[in-house]
């Protein structure tokens, strides 16, 4: 009879005890998978929303734009346009004129970033039209329309058709103002962002600032595949040496920080839960060994060597883990799948999440390789937990063991 099948039979000699450990392992794995799916889902949605609403996949700026957002740091959009045509991964591009400025409402005043955009082209790189909650996108004909964020509208008590004054620098070095009408109110997942960014038409912005035709501050690019962002970035940068091309990760460094902290977070959760499991396993296995003193002594007396005794106990422990783990993994997979399909609505508990660009409806997601990592972690945990009980078993003295009741 080989060790493995002997260990398997031993496991089921004390069904309740083994089941307690197996259930603990299964529940631990399930909870772990669920928690990790929750965190990863939250971070994923943050990244997707940031790309959709703010950064796009790539952005092109004047090389000095990063240090100072000045009116004079503009570039010719036609140059970018013709360069981009050669790259087939590029799906859409939109050019913008941007200025820091002030928005005066009848009740109050607020500092904002003013984005002058081409309504048609912007549609393909920013989900602005989709996020309009009141009024309309630029398609209604109105003189000097502006689209503002919901948070800003609430704060300044602005409604559709209200008049606001936008003030920003012009090319002559002084400031210029224009009276705009609120044409639409948008709301993204990031209310802090909504509060500080307003959109007007690029043509209106060019007229007021006096920027020459074709001159812009920012080009946003959407690719057919997000994975290609780095390669296309280098490609574009080589073709446009005077400008600065950045990926969404470079524009929004918190994305990479999130990804890093996600890994760390998953690691810590795994370790905590595995340590909690290890105690239960050690205790159970130790008892399984001690109550079988006589039996183990007998086995040794009839010629089972210490190595095989060690191996048998080790197998018993690992089997507990190997039975519990898949149950936990499957339950975890099902809950992550369902949680990903339907989403978990937290808006009741945490509307503050929106302040930081997190979706209140969390759609669970877990990278497939994490399941493998958890599986390996459980096996390692079982192996570590088995060392002490197994050693204990090999140290029994057959003669004394047999004498015991």
């Amino acid at each position, binding site marked *: 009879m080989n060790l493995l099948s002997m260990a398997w039979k031993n496991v089921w000699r*004390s069904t*309740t*005890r083994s089941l*307690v*450990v197996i*259930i*603990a392992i299964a*529940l*631990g794995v399930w*909870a772990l998978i669920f*928690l990790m799916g929750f965190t990863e889902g939250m971070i994923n949605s943050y990244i997707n929303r940031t790309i959709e609403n703010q950064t796009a996949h790539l952005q092109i700026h004047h090389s000095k734009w990063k240090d*100072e957002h*000045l*009116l*004079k740091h503009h570039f010719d959009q036609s140059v970018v346009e013709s360069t981009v045509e050669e790259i087939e991964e590029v799906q859409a591009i939109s050019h913008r004129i941007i*200025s*820091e*400025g*002030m928005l*005066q409402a009848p*009740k*109050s*005043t*607020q*500092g*904002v970033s003013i984005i002058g955009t081409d309504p048609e082209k912007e549609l393909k790189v920013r989900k602005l039209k989709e996020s309009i909650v009141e009024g309309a996108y630029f398609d209604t004909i109105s003189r000097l329309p502006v689209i503002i964020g919901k948070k800003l509208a*609430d*704060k*300044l*008590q602005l409604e559709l058709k209200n008049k606001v004054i936008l*003030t920003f*620098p012009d090319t002559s*070095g002084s*400031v210029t103002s224009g009276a705009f009408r609120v044409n639409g109110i948008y709301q993204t997942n990031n209310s*802090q962002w909504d509060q500080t960014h307003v959109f007007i038409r690029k043509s209106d912005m060019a007229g007021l600032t006096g920027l020459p035709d074709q001159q812009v501050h920012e080009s946003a690019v959407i690719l057919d595949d997000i994975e290609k962002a780095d390669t296309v970035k280098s490609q574009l940068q080589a073709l446009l040496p005077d400008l600065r091309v950045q990926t969404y990760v470079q524009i929004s*460094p*918190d994305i990479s*920080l*999130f990804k*890093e*902290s996600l890994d760390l977070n998953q690691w810590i959760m795994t370790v*905590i*839960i595995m340590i*909690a*499991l290890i*105690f*239960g396993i*050690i*205790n*159970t296995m*130790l*008892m399984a060994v001690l*109550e079988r003193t006589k039996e183990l002594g007998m086995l040794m007396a009839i010629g089972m060597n210490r190595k095989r005794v060690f191996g048998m106990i080790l197998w018993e422990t690992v089997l507990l883990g190997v039975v519990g783990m898949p149950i936990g993994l499957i339950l975890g997979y099902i809950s992550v799948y369902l949680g990903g399909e339907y989403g978990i609505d937290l808006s009741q*508990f*945490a*509307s*503050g*999440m929106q*302040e*930081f660009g997190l979706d209140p409806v969390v759609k669970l997601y877990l990278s497939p390789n994490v399941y493998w990592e958890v599986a390996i972690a459980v096996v390692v945990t079982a192996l570590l937990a088995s060392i002490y009980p197994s050693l204990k078993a090999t140290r029994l003295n057959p003669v004394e063991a047999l004498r015991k009741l």
Partner: protein
Amino acid sequence: MKWGSLSKLAWRNIWRNKRRTWITIASIAFAVFAAVAMRSVQDGMWDNMMQEVIEMQTGYMQVMKDGYLETPSVNDAFPNEAWIDSLTELENVESMLPRFQSFALAAQDESTRGIMVIGVDPLPEDNMSGLSERIKKGTYWANNDKNGVIIDVNTADYLDLDLQDTLVMISSGFRGANAAGKFVIRAMLELPATSGLGGIVYMPLHEAQYFFRAENRITSSIPILKDVDDVEDTRLAIQNEIDTSTYDVVHWEAMMPELVESRVFDEGGGIIILLILYMLVAFGIFGTLLMMLQERSYEFGILNAVGMKKKFLGIMLWMETMLIGFIGVIVGILITLPIIIWLNVDPVRIGGDMAEAYEQFNVDPLIITSLEPGIFVSQAIIVFLLVSVMALYPFYKIKIMKVIEALRP
């Protein structure tokens, strides 16, 4: 049977199998360690942040025009009259700190930037918010020297301004008046990364009032409290004194609901992990109980046969489990204490990338712990409940035990 002898029996019983007891204690101690450390750091960091924000920005409460909180407007500035100062007659109010706060556009050559203008009473303001400690360049106002303005370092950099340079600002003033002014920069200060504020310029109250054309008006008045543990009571007392048809006194939690909510959300996440941890530990304890019942069934049979009532057997087992639980809690707390006391006395500031990640969420990356007794007590209560629930199982087992069968070897 006396309780004393029962507990003595329980105590002796748990040490009959030292190894098993210690492993169980270790598992509980680990859970308590993780729980106390996590709660303590979370509480400590949030308390520290909240206090910083309260002192630096909002105070514990503010008296303001009704509706100013939702839609702050310079037109809601109100006369700084005697009734405000008379609030200091209330028991917990030491003094009233006036502020004038509104928004302006700062310009320098080709760059412009939105900036928050805060008019303050220089010396009392410093007592509350410790502004002078945040000065990086230049000096804070003194008793006989109340000229110039103090701007935050980032905005100064952005506008390429240095000490003694002139800051030009335009805005809309009180009741639609035009506001424009030039100010000499006397100092620069560094804002806490967590403030979530853009640019800020501080100036003496009368300068701000002049700039916004609102003579002798303020936008809010902050009661300085003698005892900060009594915020809500004091707020209600003030509310009783003021004309609530025009004015309002607002708790800091209402001024920063996002911050309060973030805390709840953050702590909620931690508590879920702890619940899972405790659940796993409970399974460990349960496993131990099962085995103990099995191997001691003969002994229970004897005890019952010689006259110990099943009820007392059950209580004894409950006591045993409870003893193990409490030793676990105590060991766990003892391991945690040195670490959290050390971090409380000498907080560690995280640097580098992690710090940026924290700041993204307006969290100060300072690892500081809280020594709030509630944290320790709550762990003891959780273990108590956990053990009590699990001890129901041996109760039940003992109750259905058949003495004859138990005595059969």
